């Protein structure tokens, strides 16, 4: 899963990738995060921006401020020292979701495709805490890992031209939430009233790489109430630290 040594890959003259392996696993993701946090803590001169993804970290830098050789040396040292560093304790964010009907028009299809009842799909979907591997695709969109293969369903043959913001969907082995209205081909099983992206908040994205998400079933009435609270700015997100090994809880 891990390369023997991290690979430095060229990303033009102002960026490079540090790639740790070629798989999607929580261990690789933690390795990426360790280096990300080390780079952020040390404030390496010349580093403009860092983009963590499944198995690599993209570093944007200014070659007029630091030479690529020097930067690579510094990153290698940081990487070696970070190998055993402790990551901040991740949190689990609850995403209240109404399943089925107009909120999740494809729930029936996902159930039929997998030989399950819609109830069982919901139970499986709400029964796991998903790791946030990275953000991308559109602002605030989280790539979540850990969905049960029992509810995996291929994308729609013809994508929808408009999917409402907050839609919760399944595409192959992945589940995700559309932060804003967008076209898309995911099978929609539900919708959340919470806001995943707000350009005027700091940070603008609700979900952060390395944390977890759990879907919690709500009723359409609760959906309306939470939506109003979100609009008024009075809704409090439910976030709890992940239990450590040996403590109760099953993440």
């Amino acid at each position, binding site marked *: 899963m891990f390369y023997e040594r991290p690979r430095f890959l060229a990303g033009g003259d*102002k960026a490079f990738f540090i790639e740790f392996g070629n798989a999607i696993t929580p261990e690789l993701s933690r390795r990426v995060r360790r280096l990300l946090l080390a780079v952020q803590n040390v404030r390496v001169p010349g580093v403009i921006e860092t983009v963590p993804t499944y198995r690599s970290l*993209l570093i944007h830098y200014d070659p007029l401020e630091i030479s690529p050789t020097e930067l690579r040396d510094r990153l290698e040292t940081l990487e070696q020292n970070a190998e055993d560093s402790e990551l901040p304790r991740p949190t689990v964010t609850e995403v209240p979701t109404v399943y089925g009907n107009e909120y999740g028009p494809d729930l029936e299809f996902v159930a039929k495709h997998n030989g399950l009842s819609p109830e069982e799909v919901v139970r499986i979907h709400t029964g796991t805490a998903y790791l946030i591997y990275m*953000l991308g695709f559109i602002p605030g969109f989280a790539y979540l890992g850990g969905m049960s293969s029992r509810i995996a369903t291929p994308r729609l043959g013809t994508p929808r031209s408009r999917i409402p913001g907050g839609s919760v969907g399944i595409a192959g082995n992945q589940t995700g939430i559309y932060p804003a209205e967008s076209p898309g081909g995911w099978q929609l099983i539900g919708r959340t009233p919470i806001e995943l992206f707000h350009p005027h908040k700091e940070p603008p994205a609700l979900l952060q790489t390395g944390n977890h998400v759990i879907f919690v079933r709500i009723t359409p009435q609760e959906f309306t109430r939470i939506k109003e609270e979100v609009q008024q700015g009075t809704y409090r997100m439910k976030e709890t630290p992940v239990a450590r090994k040996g403590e109760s809880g099953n993440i």
Partner: protein
Amino acid sequence: MEIFEVIQPGPLTTVQDLGRYGYQQYGVPVSGAMDNYALRVANLLVGNNEGEAGLEITLLGPQLRLLEDTVVAITGADLSPMLNNNPLPMWAAVMVGCGATISFHWPKKGCRSYLAVAGGIDIPKVMGSSSTYVKSHIGGVEGRPLRAGDCLKSGKARPGILERKLAPQYVPEYRDQSEVRVILGPQDDYFTEKGIRDFLHSEYTISTEADRVGYRLQGPRIEHKGGADIISDGIPLGAVQVPGDGLPIVLMADRQTTGGYAKIATVITVDVPKLAQAKPGDKVRFLQTTEEKAHQALRECEQTIYALEHCIQQNH
């Protein structure tokens, strides 16, 4: 201070600065001027810091009415700018009076023109930048292109800005056949030797699917060793991704922050403006270069900008 009223917006006129950095980790694209050399020079000519917000004008220009006396500079593509009924000199700081009209007649050379105004366009910043990202309605004027009836404000101009012209050796020439230099990677090992040879030794045509997100090219198909899919990773400016059909896509200012197609190479920073000024139908060739040579070219470009900034300040 209100400085322009938009009479006609043109098909795609947006407010852009040098981009939004630090938010790609949240999935927010960088955006910013496609041709950042042209915007930086326009700003310097009117006495601004190089990174102030200006207008990016695409192919067909807007019509703007001046609401105050000010100084403007238009750089980048030659879209036949006019001040009232007279040609407006490009790559120059020009005094314009209240009530005058700036318009654009037809595109002559290049694709994107930049208009800077003394004091810069004053617009609230979103995530540290004034750049417009239309797809997610972020930045600029309500996150959208300009519309008729919009009024734009300018910031405080530096006093004593003079009319002046950029020395001709600093004005780039836009051709409909350009050569851009690339550094191979990050996934050049996903392609066969033939694939890489075809990429580096063929002429590609910019298709009609070419916008601020990226340019889809037509030409010889680039052969992958196996599949085109990778585990999604980050995307630098100018990355050339090659999906399963073998036709390359160069990713530009509004590119997604992550993607799942193998990237054969990345266009070097100083050559991105050449692509920014290329239009559908124009031809492009990719030449391989090294990191060292790319950095040398970058240093030379930055020295030019530094020299411009310095000589403009001395004129005051």
